């Protein structure tokens, strides 16, 4: 065998070994099932495909948790992991699912809205595949997903995405982004079916409020805030002012732009009677000018470059050496969600949504996120779900 052939053969063998090794890791990531312990408040668990048959049997189908109170009242839908690379959302949703009790009204939670995106990676961006949240009984392992659904589930992409029904031209990638495909359609691409199913849920269940939970860069002006269209603005403003004054963290309100289509806070408001809100919490991991994209950065939010940019006044949120830990972000989201419910309930007593045993910002900062997760090995029969 010539030297050249030898080099080629060895290269092919090395490549095959690396590809197989990586392939196993990708497979484990895509097929990892996250255990969710349904807490005492959960009364019913259905699938999103119950609202759009086209999702049945696909990777986009996902669990929908109902927490119904003894007394009739209003209804709220909480959507998490629209973008699966913003895991503050699913952590906040699970804190609610595993702990909250509803006294009046109904809380509906979709913890993994873009289920396909949570089983996707982000080539070029060097994310970890998993992250662990420490708890009192060990650690709880989560998939780190991507902003967009996996091309294994929805492909090919168009050369440009034409938004339904407004016809606005969007980036071709946005056809797999469930915060650009609202209000969706039953016979559209898979992610349009996901948002369509959620719209059907809102209509069929007569949902009063919808909250879409996100994380955003510290360099992004729309962060640490509630995004709301005109119809939700009053409640958003009062809720934001209240949490800022009473709970000791910064929050503001951003108006939902009328000319930017496909977003939950725009289309839910325009195509249903529900009042939509979108929450953003600062996530330094998502910023471009950071050090390595590690689990530590994801959970603690500490980064020397972001700290330096903060000193240069180039961030839109306060930032110091303590970073922006996950418990602060989850705490903010929990408090804002509870405050929006509270404000709505005060204005609409007959449609009130009263929730107990849900932690606020101070509780999460004190106890950590893992404190609120229950051991799946000790879960009662029938209360364990996998997503």
């Amino acid at each position, binding site marked *: 065998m010539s030297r050249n052939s030898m080099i080629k053969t060895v290269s092919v063998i090395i490549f095959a070994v690396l590809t197989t090794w990586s392939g196993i890791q990708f497979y484990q990531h895509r097929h990892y099932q996250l255990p969710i312990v349904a807490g005492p408040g959960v009364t019913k668990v259905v699938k999103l495909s119950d609202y759009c048959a086209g999702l049945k049997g696909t990777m986009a189908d996902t669990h929908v948790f109902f927490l119904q109170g003894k007394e009739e009242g209003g209804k709220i839908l909480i959507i998490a992991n629209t973008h699966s690379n913003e895991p503050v959302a699913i952590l906040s949703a699970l804190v609610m699912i595993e702990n909250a009790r509803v006294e009046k009204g109904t809380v509906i939670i979709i913890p993994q809205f873009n289920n396909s995106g949570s089983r996707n990676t982000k080539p*070029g961006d060097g994310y970890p595949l998993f992250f662990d949240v420490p708890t009192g009984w060990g650690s709880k392992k989560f998939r780190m997903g991507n902003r967009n659904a996996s091309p294994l589930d929805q492909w*090919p*992409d168009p*050369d*440009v995405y*034409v938004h339904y029904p407004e016809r606005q031209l969007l980036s071709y990638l946005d056809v797999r982004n469930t915060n650009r495909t609202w209000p969706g359609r039953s016979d559209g691409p898979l992610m349009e079916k996901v948002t369509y199913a959620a719209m059907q849920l809102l209509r069929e269940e007569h949902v009063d409020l919808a909250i879409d939970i996100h994380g955003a860069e510290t360099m992004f002006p729309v962060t640490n805030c509630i995004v709301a269209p005109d119809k939700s603005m009053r409640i958003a403003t009062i809720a934001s002012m209240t949490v800022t004054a009473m709970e000791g963290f910064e929050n503001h309100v951003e108006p939902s732009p009328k000319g930017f289509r496909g977003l939950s806070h725009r289309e839910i408001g325009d195509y249903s009677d529900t009042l939509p809100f979108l929450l953003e919490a600062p996530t330094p991991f998502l910023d471009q000018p950071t050090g*390595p994209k*590690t689990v530590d950065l994801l959970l603690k939010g500490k980064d020397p470059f972001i700290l330096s940019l903060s000193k240069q006044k180039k961030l839109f949120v306060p930032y110091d050496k303590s970073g922006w830990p996950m418990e602060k972000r989850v705490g903010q989201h929990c408090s804002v969600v509870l405050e929006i419910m509270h404000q709505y309930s005060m204005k609409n007593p007959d449609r009130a949504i009263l929730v107990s045993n849900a932690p606020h910002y101070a509780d999460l900062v004190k106890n950590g996120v893992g404190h609120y997760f229950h051991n799946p090995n000790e879960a009662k029969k029938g209360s364990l779900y996998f997503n």
Partner: protein
Amino acid sequence: MVLHIGIILAIMILAYAWAGWKKLSVELCMLASAVAGGLAGAFIKTPPIGALARHLIEGTFTYLDVILVFTTATIFIAIVAESGGVNYVVRGIIKAFYRKRIIALLLLMVVILIPGALTGAGSVSILTVGAPSALALGYLGISKKKVTAILFIIAGLSAAAPPVNIWAMIVSAGTAIPYVGFELPLGIPVIVLGTFSMLVLGWKREEKKELEEILKEMPEVPDKMTWWRVLLPFLVFFGLIIVARIRPFSFPILGLPLEFTIAGIIALLVSPKKINILILSRDTVKLLLPLLATMAVVGSLQQIMTATGVRGMISYAVISMPLILLYFLLIIIIPFSEGILTYGGAAIIGIPLVWMLDSIGLHATVVIAGLSLLWPLGDGLPPTALIGRLSVMMADYKGSYWSFLKATWIPWIVITIVGILMIIFSAKLAFLVRWSM
């Protein structure tokens, strides 16, 4: 941490230089740099050694869609060329417009602009209409070097042209700025700069021949070749794109690779001569291999740079610059970010840059439009040099790569000045956005 990242960056540069010194190809130099950076990073678990292989392999998928488009589009155009279609078109253009040279130049500019404007990819312009345009420009008396320069500049502008500008779409998506109002801020500069570039590069007839003499020199075309045989595959391709735009909710999403494949099958069916598609595909892919390898390895390099923090440090360096210095350095930073990261440059540098410029009162949409004029220039710069290399290939230019790139200097400088001025005076140009809406 900052010191560690600095050391990793230095090791990556040294590995690239070492591979270059060993006379390895650009792709292998980049691979050496990525592997060395990954191993250096693994010492401090960024990334952990167990994840290194995954990062290297995952990175190769970053531009998989681009790789598929290049492959299918190049096979499509190779079928058209093999059938005699390219030569037939060129003969027709020369016959009709040889004595109306300026009109011929401007028509060719429009022809090159359309595919890129519709798809957002200058490479599609080059791959679909590049070869016949290059031949036609050659017969109009323009040297191969300048023909290559024209292809590169106009195809680059086509990618920036509305309605589809992928850089603007990526930055808009990342900054939550609606992708609306770009028609005039992008359309006017593209038309003006395209016309200017075409005339500057093509004005001088370097070789004067009689039309009859040229027609005699041109390659023969098969007897049965007709206009409809040439046009049908292109009509099918652009028809599929246009139908998808006009009836987006009832027409299935095919994607560019399948659209090119369908057009290729049509070209094969209407070809007046028999084509061995397997041999043609094999030879075409062989020709494309260095470019495809570059795209795969750039993805790996980008992933390792992110996993080690090198990418973040570079992004930080850009964002931290004093504003005046930044304006001057944008003329280097933006094209080079495209040359290294292709569309990744728009995400890594473009998004934080637009946030920062927006926060000091500049108009984000016009800023993105201005930056969009600078990004295509980077498609001529190594290591990727996507459009530059395709232009050289389609124009069949045999000179050195740098000699062709040097020929673009006047349009390059003018495009840069226009782009930078659009950024600086974006607030005053905001009326273009309003008029577009």
